[in-house]
């Protein structure tokens, strides 16, 4: 298979404009003859479904939650970047492009990233017109902040609930089209397969989660806007329902999976409190502006926050300030995370589990006063106290890194189409824009860029080329076969009647992934992880217990199908991490470090996208490489010393 990124020729800044002109259009009167399926209703899905329906296409949208408004985009806190340069501080489309390419450690496609920066300005206009209540200055104009170490203030925000407000804006646009009859919405419906016939995506198979009924839906094109796969680690900042099933089924039907090992681990999350833990909660990284991160110089197992207050300065190690004097506690996410892990590996972790480090505000409170700190971080301190029971004004916080975002995803070309014609992937579900590391406030930007401003143009070209007659109905044998297969798989899961619950398998998978394919990866560890995952897969299919029936609401059965897919994905992530024996962005290979122990890229060997092709049950996947060409930026090694 030859990967064609379909990146247009010509100067960077003109590519998208030129490309839009060259794309075929569908006549307005003919748009109503086409049907498009959108799976997932987060920022990418809701914005795509609404925008396509506005254009006149007939859309069917699906979400597994009880309402499209629940999608996990809702939980994004910080903000959304846009190159508006409202602050007159030197921002530009080119600077946003450059920062994103560099932040991604030079593993993203230049043309995609430039387009993202280009349409970022339209997103803000669109959201304001929808009535999204962004933060404003006293003069009535929009407020911006600097975020994630950016040198310019380009982040728009709505308190700590930016994702919620943007999603509700897109949900409103979607609702308007549902009311107009242009979108048919299916809540509590989970996609369990994609149907491919004659080399094109023809529709999907879904399970109605309230009745258990398996249904087929056909369309001219299918858009997967199904988010990331961070829950492969069991514990992550993702919602409990986030899963890889839709993307994985597409992968098994021919869609290549790009850079699966690229995951982002966020340094400032609330640590695990015990075996009952079900998810991790992110604390905004703005806390690192005033919080000093430390562990005791000598191991003090079980050290509690209230006892740490009395530990003399001479017995504390402010390890980030010591190792990175110029950046200190503000080193990038991956560096901060990795160093916290090293401290815990040395036995210097704190708290009941030993998997935490302190983040201490006592100096900041002494310097600026409690009032100032409260004004800056009051809501975060309250949240911390609610979850842990500790008061961070009096005792240091405990933090530990957690899986937050996955840069990898389905491989897509410049048009956001996967390697299956007619099958698209948008938002976090695709691999395209963040390279090996995503910058803060860029996930919301990408989801909405794909949905509002890219897919409405690119899908028209595909639809105009195939014509509206090129569609098969659900009565076609290929749909019936897919329905039968889905039913059989569900029945198979119910029939195993083993001894271990789905959650127990999921936890075990998560521990393996976290240990060997998390913050730090080595060949030895990865080889071991691969064996463990293969054993886990065998064990799962012979020993899982799933209660209830298929023709009913059955959340255990839903989870079982998702975990089965996570196990297979986990193995591919390990393969990908093994293949990439360089360190870049969130992917740290212990074998590839500078003499100071920092991440070392190998641009001569690995400046490519690793796109994996499914080859059948228990067969090794085939690697395809899309070479990345950098015509506009010069590749440099990061340094934060």
């Amino acid at each position, binding site marked *: 298979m030859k990967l064609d990124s379909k990146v247009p020729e010509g100067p960077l800044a003109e590519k998208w404009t030129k490309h839009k002109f060259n794309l075929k259009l569908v006549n307005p009167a003919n748009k109503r003859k086409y049907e498009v399926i959108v799976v997932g209703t987060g920022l990418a899905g809701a914005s795509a479904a609404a*925008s396509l329906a*506005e254009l006149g296409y007939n859309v069917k949208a699906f979400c597994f*939650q*009880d*309402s*499209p*408004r*629940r999608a996990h985009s*809702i*939980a994004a806190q910080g903000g959304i970047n846009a190159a508006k340069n*409202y602050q007159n501080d030197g921002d530009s489309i080119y600077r946003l492009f450059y920062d994103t390419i560099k932040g991604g450690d030079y593993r993203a496609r230049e043309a995609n990233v430039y387009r993202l920066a280009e349409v970022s300005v*339209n997103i*803000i206009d*669109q959201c*304001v*017109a*929808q*009535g999204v*209540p*962004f933060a*404003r200055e006293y003069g*009535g*104009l*929009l407020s911006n902040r600097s975020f994630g170490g950016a040198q310019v203030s380009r982040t728009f925000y*709505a*308190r700590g609930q930016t994702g919620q*407000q943007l999603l509700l804006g897109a*949900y*409103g*646009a979607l*609702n*308007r089209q549902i009311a107009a009859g242009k979108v048919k*919405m299916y*809540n509590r419906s989970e996609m369990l397969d994609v149907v491919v016939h004659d080399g094109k995506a023809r529709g999907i198979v879904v399970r109605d989660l*309230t009745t258990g009924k398996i249904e087929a839906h056909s369309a001219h094109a299918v858009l997967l806007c199904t988010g990331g796969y961070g829950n492969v680690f069991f514990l992550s*900042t993702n*919602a*409990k*329902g986030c899963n890889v099933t839709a993307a994985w089924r597409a992968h098994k039907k021919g869609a290549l999976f790009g850079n699966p090992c690229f995951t982002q681990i966020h340094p400032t999350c609330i640590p695990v*409190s*015990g075996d*009952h*833990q079900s*998810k991790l*909660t*992110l604390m905004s990284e703005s806390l690192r502006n005033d919080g000093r991160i430390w562990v005791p110089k000598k191991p003090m197992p079980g050290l509690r926050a209230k006892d740490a207050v009395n530990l003399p300065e001479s017995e504390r190690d402010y390890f980030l300030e010591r190792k990175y004097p110029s950046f200190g506690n503000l080193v990038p996410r991956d560096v901060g995370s990795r160093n916290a892990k090293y401290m815990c590996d040395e036995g210097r972790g704190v708290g009941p589990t030993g998997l935490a480090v302190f983040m201490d505000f006592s100096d900041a409170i002494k310097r600026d006063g409690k009032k100032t700190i409260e004004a800056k971080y009051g809501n975060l301190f309250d949240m911390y106290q*609610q*979850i*842990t*029971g500790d008061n961070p004004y009096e005792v240091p916080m405990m933090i530990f890194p957690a899986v937050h975002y996955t840069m990898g995803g389905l491989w897509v070309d410049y048009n956001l189409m996967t390697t299956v014609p007619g099958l698209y992937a948008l938002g976090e579900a695709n691999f395209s824009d963040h390279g090996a590391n995503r910058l803060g406030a860029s996930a919301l930007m990408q989801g909405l860029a794909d949905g509002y*401003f890219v897919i*409405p143009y690119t899908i028209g070209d595909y639809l105009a080329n195939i014509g509206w007659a090129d569609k098969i109905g659900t009565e076609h044998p290929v749909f019936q076969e897919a329905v039968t297969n889905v039913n059989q798989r569900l029945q198979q899961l119910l029939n195993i009647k083993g*001894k271990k619950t789905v*959650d127990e398998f999921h936890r075990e998978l998560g521990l393996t992934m976290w240990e060997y394919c998390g913050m730090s990866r080595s060949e030895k560890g990865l080889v071991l992880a691969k064996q463990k995952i293969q054993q886990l897969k065998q064990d799962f299919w012979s020993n899982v217990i799933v*209660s*209830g029936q298929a023709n*009913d*609401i059955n*959340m*255990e059965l839903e989870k079982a199908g998702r975990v089965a897919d996570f196990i297979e994905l986990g193995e591919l992530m390990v393969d990908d991490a093994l293949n990439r024996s360089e360190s870049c962005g969130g992917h740290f290979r212990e074998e590839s470090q500078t003499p100071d122990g920092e991440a070392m890229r190998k641009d001569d060997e690995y400046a490519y996208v690793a796109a994996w092709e499914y080859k059948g049950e228990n067969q090794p996947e085939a690697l395809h490489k899309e070479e990345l060409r950098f015509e506009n930026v010069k590749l440099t090694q990061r340094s934060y010393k």
Partner: protein
Amino acid sequence: MKITLKVWRQKDKNAKGGFKTYQLDHVSPDMSFLEMFDVLNIDLVKKGEEPIHFDHDCREGICGMCSMYINGHPHGPLQTTTCQLHMRSFKDGDTITVEPWRAKAFPVLKDLVVDRTAFDRIQQAGGYVSVNTGGVPDANEIPIPKKVADEAFDAATCIGCGACVAACKNASAMLFVAAKVSQFTLLPQGQPERKERVEKMVAQMDAEGFGACTNTRACEAECPKGIKITTIARMNREYFGAKLSSYEVQVGGGGE
């Protein structure tokens, strides 16, 4: 901690439900309320029983999906979502009663899972500004006073969980509807459809079978996002104003 749970179990929409009692002997005060259910459910599954079904997703207090009625309060004793409630809010030896949201417009689907699509239909009736993608003015073209934007945000922060309905003796959805109406009433972007929006959303709210508001303020006391009852006052004002002066009245002369 030792906890006794009395939980509403109901096989499906049409089945007759009832309380079932469960004894938990090893509850950690650091567990969230939902994690306690996770632990109980693992035991139930291992015993070959069906786990207790409940809605949940983000587990960080923002998606609005969790919905348990705990000891007579939606989301339990704190003004937060169930997922943010931790067992340290209870005492060793407590008996806790857990029910689904109770409202005619929120039929129980199974155990603690209810159908809240009525909320979606109310939003579909008018909870948006009718703009298409593209062709909108620059974001800074219309300045909005900070105080107005902040107040609109306070209303827009509603997570659509339905605690207001569950708390209300009339099962009224006024706080939920008023939050959206307030957001758009306050913002300049909401002005063109200001009157018909409130008329349509209220009409849909009534059609779904939610009760009327009698100003008991139970909704405000229980709302995990602190939405104020002043939004209801605003919606009432908007509604009466619209009935007297809406586009249909002005242009159509008040009748066909």
